């Protein structure tokens, strides 16, 4: 309920109360209220109508809220019904009783007996007055008879005597109403106006001429408006009090022929009769009036009662609204609060400012939500901490070089890191939620892992090797048939079981150790080469010497044909032995390369010296040097580095020699540059990079992965020791070497990163940077 409606109801009730009070006071006859009764009634009805409107508006609002299922409307409706019922029922009972009471009591006031008594009393009064009037008439007739034939003087004496006998006034008048003789009390007393006012009218005279004469009771009127019209009745105090006097006009029985004369006698009604008659007639009038107005009275009472009832009902309903909303308010606040809490809003509710149970309830409710809020924020904090820890772990897992795959108890992949996808060369989506066996290309891996776990389980069951909770195994995975690279991937995998408490499963960690295997292969080759060289070289000299000797000794003894054959044979033997010797020397050199002697070296100078041998300084040159100025000096063995550059340039030129003629112009770029990097210790470092890039056909994929292994070559007549040699030298220099095909697919690029710089150069470079 809005504030406006509430205030309107309160004000309306107050006004209604005042009006009802006025209305009740109006039932007695105060003149002010009598005058404004209709206005009062109208205002009351208006107020009642306004309150009815308010109540209807409120009820309609409540109903629509109830229909719409608005929160709290049901409680409100119940409370309103309850309080309204409590308010209305007693009022209704009182109303019924009052109506019955009023209807019956008003009727009972008016009784036929009383009416008859009053009628009789009135008739009695009338009879008494009539009696007095007829007495007066009789004496008038007597006096008229006495007056007959007398002159004005005689008549005055008679009249005076009459007045002395108790008559109020006596007059003798001519036919045209002229006063002939008069006698009266007031004249004697000398008060009051002249007798003109008492003169009979022409009509009276006319009536007096009729038989029976004129006889009237006068002066009963004029009670309500004294002042102007009542002047005639005011000349006597007694008359004024009673207002009753008798007037008789008779014609004087004069002998015929004489102008007719009239006698008027006036006499006040005896005081006690007059006052009693007056009281009686007043009472009679009052009674008749009330009897007439009893319907109105009943209407008035019942109307007042109905108005009261209506106002009381409306007030009760309005009050019910007020009380209900006051009562329901804290409950609604609480209910709203619980709903908000259910929806997760733990902000404090407005406190109901009462010190009863409802106030306590809201306070404790707020305390509860406060505690909930605390608890929830603690949980939130913990969750955030956990999440950040988890995120850190995941980041570690994702960025570690080893591949990790987590399997659940059924062998489905639960989780895997980026390295796993890179190593296994499968998509992330392909792994999640599927058994390893079902993933294309991983059947061998899956089988090996499963077997390894089974073996470990068997070992555990056998009770042995309890100290080791994981297995370790080297797994070969065949390359996918679709890829160009057909080399197997060699993995070193470790597997362990997750503790049961965490959720049983398996975790497999694996590394791509193909490079390690390759390095091992190089070392093995070197050893084999050294031994073979040693073993092969020993018999070569005797073979060569024997062949030369054979030619020398036998050449003369043979016929020319035979000698020619011999010469060819021995030449072949000698040549082949020479070739074999060179090859063996190569092997020996590879295996027994002297350790590098590092000294500060300007790489650009070295390259320029070497290029002098290759360049003709004209347009036909295929080699272009792009040398970075201010290149810091590196620590290096000039001889060995020279061999490296020679080898690489030779490779490049060999690659370009095979290329088809329709291709673009052959080109080899030799590039040096300084590389700045951030070291693991956080400090900046500088390295020198040497790149030799050609636009030849590039490395075959098969070669690329094993380019640094000895005896791997794409050339027809190569030993396959060039790149391994280069690699070996670069390793000795503490550098890194990378071979790759250019990203656009045309040509190969070999890049050497020399990390060891001359100390002063490093210093100088650092100074330069500063």
């Amino acid at each position, binding site marked *: 309920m809005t504030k406006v409606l509430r205030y309107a109801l309160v004000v309306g009730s107050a006004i209604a109360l005042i009006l009802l009070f006025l209305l009740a006071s*109006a039932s007695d*006859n105060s003149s002010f209220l*009598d005058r404004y*009764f*209709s206005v009062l009634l109208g205002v009351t009805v208006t107020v009642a109508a306004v309150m009815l409107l308010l109540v209807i508006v409120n009820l309609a609002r409540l109903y629509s809220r109830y229909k719409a299922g608005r929160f709290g409307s049901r409680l409100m409706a119940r409370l309103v019904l309850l309080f309204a019922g409590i308010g209305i029922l007693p009022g209704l009972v009182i109303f019924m009783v009052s109506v019955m009471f009023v209807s019956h009591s008003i009727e009972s006031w008016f009784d036929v007996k009383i009416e008859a008594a009053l009628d009789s009393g*009135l008739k009695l*009064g*009338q009879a008494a*007055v009539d009696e007095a009037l007829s007495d007066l008439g009789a004496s008038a007739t007597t006096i008229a008879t006495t007056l007959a034939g007398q002159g004005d003087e005689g008549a005055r004496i008679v009249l005076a005597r009459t007045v002395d006998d108790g008559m109020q006034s006596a007059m003798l008048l001519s036919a045209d109403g002229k006063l002939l003789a008069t006698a009266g009390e007031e004249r004697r007393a000398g008060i009051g106006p002249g007798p003109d006012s008492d003169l009979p009218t022409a009509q009276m005279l006319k009536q007096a001429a009729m038989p029976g004469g004129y006889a*009237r*009771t*006068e002066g*009963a*009127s*004029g009670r*309500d*408006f004294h*002042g*102007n*019209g009542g002047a005639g009745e005011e000349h006597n105090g007694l008359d004024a009090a009673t207002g*009753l006097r008798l007037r008789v006009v008779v014609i004087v029985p004069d002998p015929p022929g004489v102008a007719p004369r009239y006698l008027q006698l006036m006499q006040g009604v005896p005081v006690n009769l007059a006052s009693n*008659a*007056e009281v*009686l*007639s007043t009472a*009679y*009038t009052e*009674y*008749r*009036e*009330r*009897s*007439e*107005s*009893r*319907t*109105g*009275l009943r*209407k*008035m009472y019942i*109307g007042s009662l109905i108005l009261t009832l209506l106002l009381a009902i409306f007030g009760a309903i309005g009050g019910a609204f007020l009380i209900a909303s006051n009562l329901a308010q804290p409950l609604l606040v609480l209910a709203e609060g619980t709903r908000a809490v259910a929806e997760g809003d733990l902000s404090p509710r407005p406190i109901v400012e009462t010190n009863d149970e409802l106030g306590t309830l809201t306070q404790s409710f707020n305390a509860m939500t406060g505690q909930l809020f605390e608890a929830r924020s603690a949980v939130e904090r913990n969750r955030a901490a956990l999440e950040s820890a988890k995120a850190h772990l995941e980041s570690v897992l994702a960025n570690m070089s080893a591949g990790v795959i987590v399997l659940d108890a059924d062998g489905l992949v639960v989780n895997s890191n980026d390295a796993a996808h890179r190593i296994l060369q499968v998509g992330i989506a392909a792994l999640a939620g599927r058994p390893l066996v079902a993933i294309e290309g991983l059947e061998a891996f899956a089988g090996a892992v499963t077997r390894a776990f089974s073996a470990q389980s068997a070992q555990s069951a056998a009770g042995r090797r309890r100290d080791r909770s994981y297995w370790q195994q080297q797994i070969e995975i065949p390359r996918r048939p679709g890829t160009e690279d057909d080399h197997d991937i060699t993995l070193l995998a470790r597997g362990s079981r997750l503790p049961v408490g965490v959720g049983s499963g398996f975790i497999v960690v694996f590394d791509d150790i193909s490079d390690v295997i390759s390095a091992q292969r190089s070392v093995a080759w070197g050893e084999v080469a050294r031994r073979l060289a040693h073993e092969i070289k020993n018999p070569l000299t005797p073979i060569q010497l024997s062949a030369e000797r054979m030619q020398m000794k036998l050449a003369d003894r043979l016929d020319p044909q035979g000698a020619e054959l011999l010469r060819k044979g021995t030449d072949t033997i000698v040549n082949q032995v020479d070739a074999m010797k060179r090859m063996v020397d190569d092997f020996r050199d590879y295996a027994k390369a002297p350790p590098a002697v590092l000294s500060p070296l300007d790489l650009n100078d070295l390259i320029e010296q070497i290029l002098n041998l290759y360049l003709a300084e004209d347009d036909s040159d295929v080699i272009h040097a792009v040398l970075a100025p201010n290149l810091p000096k590196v620590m290096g063995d000039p001889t060995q580095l020279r061999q490296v550059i020679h080898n690489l340039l030779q490779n490049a030129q060999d690659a370009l020699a095979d290329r088809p003629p329709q291709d673009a112009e052959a080109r080899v770029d030799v590039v040096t540059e300084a590389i700045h990097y951030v070291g693991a210790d956080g400090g900046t470092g500088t390295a020198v990079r040497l790149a030799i890039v050609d636009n030849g056909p590039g490395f075959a994929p098969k070669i690329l992965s094993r380019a640094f292994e000895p005896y791997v070559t794409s050339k027809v007549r190569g030993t396959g020791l060039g790149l391994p040699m280069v690699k070996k030298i670069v390793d000795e220099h503490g550098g890194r070497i990378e071979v790759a095909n250019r990203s656009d697919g045309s040509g190969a690029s070999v890049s050497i990163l020399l990390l060891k710089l001359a100390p002063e150069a490093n210093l100088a470079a650092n100074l330069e940077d500063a």
Partner: protein
Amino acid sequence: MLVLACVTAQAADGIDITRNTIESTEAGYRLDAVYAFDLNVGLQQALQGGMPLYFTTEIEMTRPRWYWADDRAVFTRRTVRLDYDVLARVYHVGVVGSVQQTFDTLDEALLAVKRQGRWLIASRGDLKPGESYNVTLRMFMDREYLRKPLQIDALNNSEWRLTSHKKTFTYRAE
């Protein structure tokens, strides 16, 4: 006679204004009006029980003005009291605040009410000669003077309601 009967029949439940003329005299303008009505039984009984009845005549003269609200030149009312003296058994009729006449019979008294004397409604200066005035005349039994319960009763009891329609006519001031 027949016409009169018709008029009385028509006036059974109300007051008819059968004549309404305004006369210009030296003292001012006077209304000469005749009303026709009958007292119903209830009213007669109330009257003869001693209850006074009041009849009010209300007259309003307005001059239409096209540019403004109508000019109300005259608005006046006069109330006539009719009552019965139960003791003396005579009827009194009189304008409230003025002399009253006495009649022996109800018919005579009613006749005095129906044919009231010429009533000075406006002095000479009140009306502009030559102008036309709309006159609204109304005669009714005045409930203001009734006792309160009777007023309430009269609200929805036609027995206590005796009133004429508003009679409107035009008068050209002389």
